[in-house]
């Protein structure tokens, strides 16, 4: 509760996600060490780093998905809209209902229709029913640039869609929660270059309404879509800068070695 009170002194309009002294473990092994970072609203922040650097763990800590792994735990605080989501009174289920998440592999629910895959997000939050739900589904599918491709087969199975379409369906599903924040964990790594570009265009459009945190192993992708870029190495946040500055004038030696391709 101390963190909760302390955070209220800060200007909430300027910071969407305020991360303080964040440590994360998988059982006995520590995956994140003392991460401190502020993420601005209506921006795209990219987390980059080599495999095992903790960038995925980091983004999974922002909606408490990290704890879904058996034996995983987190300390520190993540303040979103004035509330520390790691405060003891907070139920992680409710945190996840207000933060959208998109995964590496497109994971639509195969036993449900395309329509239901989007509607489930709204249903869980009790946002709409009947015609209002139809409208919400259409709005989110349009927002995910998928409506024209699926409007004639909303009752069809999501498995008949291409990988890129499935991933945009998953984005529409995340948007149907009506979140302010959308987390994306390597959303393009299973997609071909054309589908990747479509998703990147989408990310740039979504930035107008959502705060986006994206994990990517693709440095060019970070350069293309992100306003700010953070570099993780061995569980430590090495450097975080405006993207142009990050790639042209990295402050840290490790960052420079990574972006110039000396390792990773």
């Amino acid at each position, binding site marked *: 509760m101390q963190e909760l009170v302390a955070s209220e002194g800060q200007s909430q309009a300027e910071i969407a996600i305020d991360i303080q002294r964040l440590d994360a473990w998988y059982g006995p092994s520590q995956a994140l060490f003392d991460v401190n970072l502020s993420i601005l609203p209506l921006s795209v922040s990219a987390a980059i780093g080599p495999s095992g650097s903790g960038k995925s763990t980091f983004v999974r800590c922002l909606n408490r998905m990290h704890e879904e792994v*058996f034996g995983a735990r987190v300390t520190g605080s993540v303040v979103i809209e004035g509330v520390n989501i790691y405060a003891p009174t907070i139920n992680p289920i409710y945190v*996840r209902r207000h933060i959208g998440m998109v*995964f590496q592999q497109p994971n639509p*629910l*195969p036993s449900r229709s395309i329509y239901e895959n989007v509607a489930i997000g709204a249903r*869980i*939050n009790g946002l709409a029913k009947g015609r209002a739900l139809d409208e919400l589904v259409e709005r989110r599918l349009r927002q995910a640039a998928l409506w024209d491709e699926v409007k004639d087969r909303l009752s069809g199975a999501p498995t008949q869609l291409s990988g890129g379409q499935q991933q945009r369906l*998953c984005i529409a599903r*995340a948007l149907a929660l009506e979140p302010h924040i959308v987390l994306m964990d390597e959303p393009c790594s299973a997609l071909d270059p054309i589908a990747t570009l479509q998703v990147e265009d989408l990310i740039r459009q979504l930035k107008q309404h959502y705060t986006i945190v994206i994990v990517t192993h693709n440095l060019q992708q970070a350069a293309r879509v992100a306003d700010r870029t953070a570099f993780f190495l061995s569980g430590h946040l090495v450097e975080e800068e405006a993207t142009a500055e990050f790639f042209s004038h990295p402050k840290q030696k490790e960052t420079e070695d990574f972006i110039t391709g000396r390792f990773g």
Partner: protein
Amino acid sequence: MSVTAQSTKSNPFEAERNGLQLRRSIVNKLSIILTGFFAICASLFLIYLIGYIAAKGLQFINANFFTQRPRAPGETGGGWATALQGSAILITLATIIGVPLGMAVGIFLSEVGRGPFASFVRFLVDTLTGIPTIIFGLFAWVLIVVPSHSFSAVSGGVALGIIMIPTVARATEEVLRLVPNDQREASAALGATHSRTIMQVVVPAARSGIVTGVMLALARVAGETAPLLMTAGGTPFFNTNLFHQIDAIPLRIFNFTLSPYQIERDQAFSGALVLIVFVVITSLAVRWATGGFKRRGR
């Protein structure tokens, strides 16, 4: 192309004609012939068994067989309707008891339980699978028949239901494990509770596999005889009171086989035929259902 010194023949792909090659080719042919021979033996045995039962049993398969109750010993005619009705009731009771419990254990093992307790439960379930089924009959006898002073459909259903639990549990666990983890993550990330994820995402995704497991367990208990001897009891009368003794196909086969009357011994084969047809139809239905699912799913 260099010709090595050892090679004496022009074509390297031509088989050499020496003792070793000859022995290899004989052993090769012999083993193929032997496996084929034993495969034919095994199928012939099964075909002979089914053919013999069909030959002896078909003569009584008529409308009476499915609609009438057994006649008094020595009289001709009569049917197995009581046994069919009894088996239907017993299997229904077993399903009501065995399927929810078995599924619950399977869900626990795959989705909820972790650590030593889950391993212990899994060990118990595996042990239950191996216990002779008459032990479960004995259990139901002590638990229900003795206190109520009567054989009953309920006690038979309980015995068969318990026999179903480990089969259904392991089948459920196996198919739930096949559901990709990213579906659980998708659901959890939407803020679904753990139980909602299990009941609305994971179990529906594994539905056809669970149905297969249940059907196979059903086919198995449909033929169980030993546990019914001291629970259902057997009777030549129709009975819908679940607390009275009840007939079953395997029980009637057992009783008629031991009968001093030729006609009853022959009728036992008709019962056996019906039971075999039921099991075959069940496994065909399972194949059709799972095959059909694969075509739809992909």
